[in-house]
């Protein structure tokens, strides 16, 4: 066991995966020599050489597209998009190819590849560095989308993603890259993709969050001592662990979904709809979405209002509890 940040845990996962399996290659913009702008890939090029860890041109479509070719030809590429906002030029490759090769070739070619991307706001960054684009990936059949919220999960989900036979997108909540440490196992391990984590059991209401917001929910619930919330860290956005959500809601009857992505057509809508489909008559109050506003993430001098703080979560929890059944 060793105490690690999320960033160190990711580095650990990449390192151990490369060590174990020669077919793992890691690349992207500034990923090689420098070890990435956040240093998630630090040290890897030195250890595994320039062929397995390398810098690319600024060309997201080619980064994803080449990974597709590599995956078909026996490698397990793990590529980085420098920020999730810059994954968009590679979006065509991800949607029309990465997500589809298995189905298109009726299983002849499948793509064990991983696309990592730091995402989310709260780091006082300029435009396109703060987006939360879960929906764009979760809506696409053939992709998996995972988001860790702790160092333990960061390592385990990254290793699971690399071992997965299908393409996995990892959105890394960069706001908490170095925010805290956790004692995690030294040896390789996986966190199962498709399974949520119950952060805290409770009976009064269900709060669903992921990434950086899990901690904010935890902080919030310390401010609302009289409410016994069940907190679920979704961990995998797609395929979603509907079962865990439904069981919880059946127990609590109330639900708050918290995310930083913009509200309309955002991930919370899917969660609310699944709850409607499978636990409608258990609901004692209208499910509530607490999300980013339907605007471009403001630049730092306005981000203050956009970021979801524990106080606002607490406020919504109280309002939700006040609704009578």
């Amino acid at each position: 066991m060793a105490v690690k940040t999320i960033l160190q845990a990711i580095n650990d996962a990449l390192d151990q995966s490369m060590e174990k399996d020669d077919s793992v290659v890691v690349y992207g913009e500034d990923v090689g020599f420098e070890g990435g702008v956040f240093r998630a890939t630090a040290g890897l090029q030195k250890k595994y050489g320039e062929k397995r860890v390398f810098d690319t041109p600024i060309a997201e479509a080619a980064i994803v597209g080449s990974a597709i070719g590599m995956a078909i030809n026996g490698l397990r590429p793990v590529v980085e998009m420098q920020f999730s906002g810059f994954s968009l030029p590679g979006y065509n490759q991800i949607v029309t190819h990465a997500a589809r090769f298995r189905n298109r070739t009726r299983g002849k070619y499948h793509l064990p590849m991983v696309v990592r991307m730091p995402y989310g706001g709260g780091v006082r960054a300029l435009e396109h560095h703060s987006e939360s684009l879960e929906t764009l990936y979760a809506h696409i059949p053939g992709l998996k989308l995972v988001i860790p919220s702790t160092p333990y999960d960061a390592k385990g989900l990254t290793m699971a993603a690399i071992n997965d036979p299908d393409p996995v997108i990892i959105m890394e909540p960069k706001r908490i890259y170095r925010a805290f440490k956790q004692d995690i196992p030294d040896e390789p391990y996986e966190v199962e993709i498709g399974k949520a984590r119950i952060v805290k059991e409770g009976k009064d209401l269900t709060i669903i969050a992921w990434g950086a917001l899990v901690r904010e929910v935890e902080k919030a619930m310390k401010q609302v001592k009289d409410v016994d919330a069940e907190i679920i860290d979704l961990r995998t956005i797609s395929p979603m662990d509907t079962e865990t959500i439904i069981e919880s809601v059946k127990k609590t009857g109330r639900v708050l979904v918290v995310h930083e992505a913009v509200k309309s057509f955002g991930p919370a809508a899917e969660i609310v709809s699944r709850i409607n489909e499978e636990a409608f008559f258990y609901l004692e109050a209208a499910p509530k979405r607490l999300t980013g506003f339907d605007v471009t993430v403001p630049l730092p001098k306005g981000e203050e209002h956009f970021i979801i703080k524990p106080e606002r979560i607490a406020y919504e929890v109280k309002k939700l509890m006040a609704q009578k059944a």
Partner: protein
Amino acid sequence: MYMLFEEFDPLKEEMLQILDKDGKIVNDKLVPKIKKETLLKMYKTMVLGRIADDKAVQFQRQGRMLTYAPNHGQEAAQLGSIAAMEDKDWLVLAFRELNSMLYKGVTLKQSFLYWLGNEWGSRYDDNVNVLPVNVPIGSQISHAAGLAYASKLKETGEVTIVYIGDGGTSHGEFHEGMNFASAYDLPMIVIIQNNQYAISTPRHKTINSKTLAQKAVSYGIPGIQVDGNDPLAMFLATQTARERAAKGEGPTLIEAVTYRMGAHTTSDNPKLYREDSEVEEWEEKDPLKRFKKYMIDKKYWSEKKDKELHESSKKEVLNTFKEVEDMGLVDLGDIFKYTYETMTPELTKQMEDYQEYLDEEGAK
């Protein structure tokens, strides 16, 4: 080193030709050594490809084929290049490469199945290193680069050949893939089938460079313009590029100057945007005609054999199409089963719900 690429400079609009439109050797020194069996395979594939192509268009007019992208006229550009590759090599398609596909081991049945709208048509045999038809223009170049990267890393000696249209070179994906391949000196060959049109849009309307081969300059790699209707010239250029690739010296860009004799696809009417006279002019440059003459001159072939080949090929085409036509719809399960290795709970539920609907309503 690769004199060929220095000798034919696209910036001077020089074009490599060996076998002219009348089947005469115009450049003796450059005639590539091609094994007889290779030439025969090329020729036979060309005849089968031509017949399959023309029939497919006919079937479509009869309402038996959904859509189809004809290759007629572009056979030499495809066969001349693919024949210079080795078995272990990778083939990455655009979508108009029936002849390269057939040569490389995709079956006619699979190809027809694809155009009839069945995913099983892209499930090529295990040992066939061919990626499926690639619909989003330009995006295949970086797939090829990725295959080539893996070949290089694993030191397999494989080279990847990838096709694209003239129109496709305008896409950002073309540029990124080319640059990526050149940055790492990847073993890759890019064939631009310049068939003069992108659907209705003539090549010169949207692309200002005199040649397409000169786009190689942007990547610091060799580029050459070749008579795409000349199978020998295509072979030589590709063979030279393959040597270069195999030695680790990187990718090459080959522009095959050719012409799409038919429609863009069967839902297109080329009469709307091009003159008959232009089509007739290119008819003269037909690759099959000149290849046949070359084969007969070389005594590898005869009129009699040709007649037999045409008959057997036609039979093969008709039988195969009939077989494919009779195959019907895909299984319901297939629609769901291949999205992930393991079906997700949600997908399983969707399939079951739908099955329930079919069972309940089908019963009525």
